[in-house]
């Protein structure tokens, strides 16, 4: 891969972020703001004694733990962001190859020397690699503001919160876990990513209806013709367990990626993404 190809690909990613900044920056910023406002409001509602007791309790709770031990606690704070990321990613994926056809700007994008493979891959990279970076940065900003507020609270209540610095380090460590979780989840859900992109590239109208409708129809015909429910069970097995979406320790990272189920999903997802590239070939 030469330098120009990398510059081209970077420009494609930048384009995606600029076009969908509301989904990748605006949405998590709103979630962060809501969390900060909500926790500040709660902190203001409780009296000084309760607050001091609570802060002391946290101090005792984390005493003697390393930042990595404390990191999973902060993962809980990330759950609203993870949910927002997946919802925004789904909205992005189902519209991204449809919207430019609808508003005809595809004629401009296609008039540039950029292949359909590069275009579709840039969209996959945006969801898998780039979007989680923005989410993690916004969570980091939220932690930073939260820690500053907490420090003010601690100082004003004259509570000796041992290890507030350690807490901040734990929050930072949790950001790495959050990013890894998003990455592994994206690989785990690659068939969904491929499916949404395929119908985003295919549908002339209402791509979401097409993606959902065809899926239901395929499941229905499988059941009707063969009397089996492999498709429904397979999808259920990939979607049902929330633990599949979070990583609490680094040791499990490789194990989570390099297993039969994930790799099979990556193959299925790649086939569907290839289908989206083929669909993208012609605008008519």
């Amino acid at each position: 891969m030469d330098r120009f190809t990398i510059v081209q690909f970077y420009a494609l990613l930048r384009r995606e972020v600029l076009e969908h900044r509301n989904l990748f920056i605006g949405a998590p910023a709103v979630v962060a703001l809501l969390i900060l406002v909500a926790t500040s409001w709660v902190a203001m509602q409780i009296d000084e004694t309760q607050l001091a007791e609570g802060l002391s309790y946290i101090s005792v709770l984390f005493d003697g733990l390393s930042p990595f031990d404390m990191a999973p606690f902060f993962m809980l704070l990330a759950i609203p962001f993870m949910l927002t990321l997946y919802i925004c990613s789904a909205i992005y994926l189902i519209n991204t190859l449809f919207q430019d056809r609808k508003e005809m700007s595809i004629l401009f994008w296609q008039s540039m020397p950029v292949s359909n493979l590069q275009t579709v891959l840039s969209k996959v990279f945006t969801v898998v690699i780039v979007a989680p970076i923005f989410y993690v940065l916004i969570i980091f900003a939220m932690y930073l503001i939260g820690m500053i507020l907490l420090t003010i609270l601690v100082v004003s209540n004259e509570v000796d919160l041992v290890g507030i610095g350690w807490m901040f380090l734990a929050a930072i460590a949790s950001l790495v876990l959050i990013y890894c979780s998003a990455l592994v989840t994206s690989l785990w859900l690659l068939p969904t990513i491929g499916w949404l992109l395929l119908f985003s590239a295919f549908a002339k109208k209402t791509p979401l209806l097409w993606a959902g409708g065809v899926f239901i129809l395929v499941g229905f015909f499988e059941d009707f013709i063969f009397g089996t429910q492999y498709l429904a069970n397979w999808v259920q097995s990939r979607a049902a367990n929330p633990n599949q979406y979070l990583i609490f320790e680094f040791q499990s990272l490789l194990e989570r990626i390099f297993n039969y189920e994930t790799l099979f999903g990556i193959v299925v997802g790649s086939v569907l993404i290839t289908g989206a590239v083929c669909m993208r070939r012609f605008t008519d």
Partner: protein
Amino acid sequence: MSNIVEARSLRKNYGNFTALDGVDLTIPSGAISGLIGPNGAGKTTTLKALIGLCDVDGELIVAGRDPRRARHKLMEDVCFIADVGILPKWLKVSQLIDYVEAVHPRFDRKKAEKFLSTTDIPANKRIKELSKGMVTQLHLALVMSIEVQLLVLDEPTLGLDIIYRKEFYDRLLNDYYDGNRTIIISTHQVEEIETLLSHLLFINKGKIVLDTLMSELCEVYTEVLVDADKMAEADACGPIHVRELLGKKSYTFESVPKERLEVLGELQTPSVADLFVAKLKEDRHG
């Protein structure tokens, strides 16, 4: 002179509608070629096929490549402006320039900025905030800053007022065309581009009905304003089109020797617009 476009038997159907019905065309390198046709004739489909945006059957080579197999490589040598405002509305002008600079190896940013400095287009505005004329100016500034062999324009001035239209073609001819590049223009406003063209293509119902160099037009086609007493004689020469004009009749002939026509009245070369009407009516009547 070599050909930059060679197409044989191009066919394209949209359901029951035949958009291209065996289109054969060749466009010489360095030509300014006009693709003229009524609505639904197949102009846009032909142009989209040339740049690989539309799947067609038949043989097609543009700038030495098959657009259906290597669109993105072809687009290093070809630029395209469509009949609708196709620039992404959410981008700022400066972001658009950044994007083109990053993805196009033959884009000259300084040239683009120089072109834009002569317009009223602000770099920090989003494209949706620009007028249609400004969007077209912006698109033209971008493509004029890219070193390519072929520029494809599909109704580029549609919906623009006369000032923008005139400026568009003036810039194209004075600042862009250098005799080596090829330009293909599809338009309804035939009169505006007539003087620019060196090659002419008429398309109707998915078929090319005329493919000629402008320099050969006067040799093949003749228009004669015939007096009433010589109309029978003119009819005998086999005109392709006859129209009433100030009490006389104007006859258009194809490949009839000038010596034979001189006796009928004053000879002249038909305008592209008149020839277009003549060829279409001839095509309609078989």
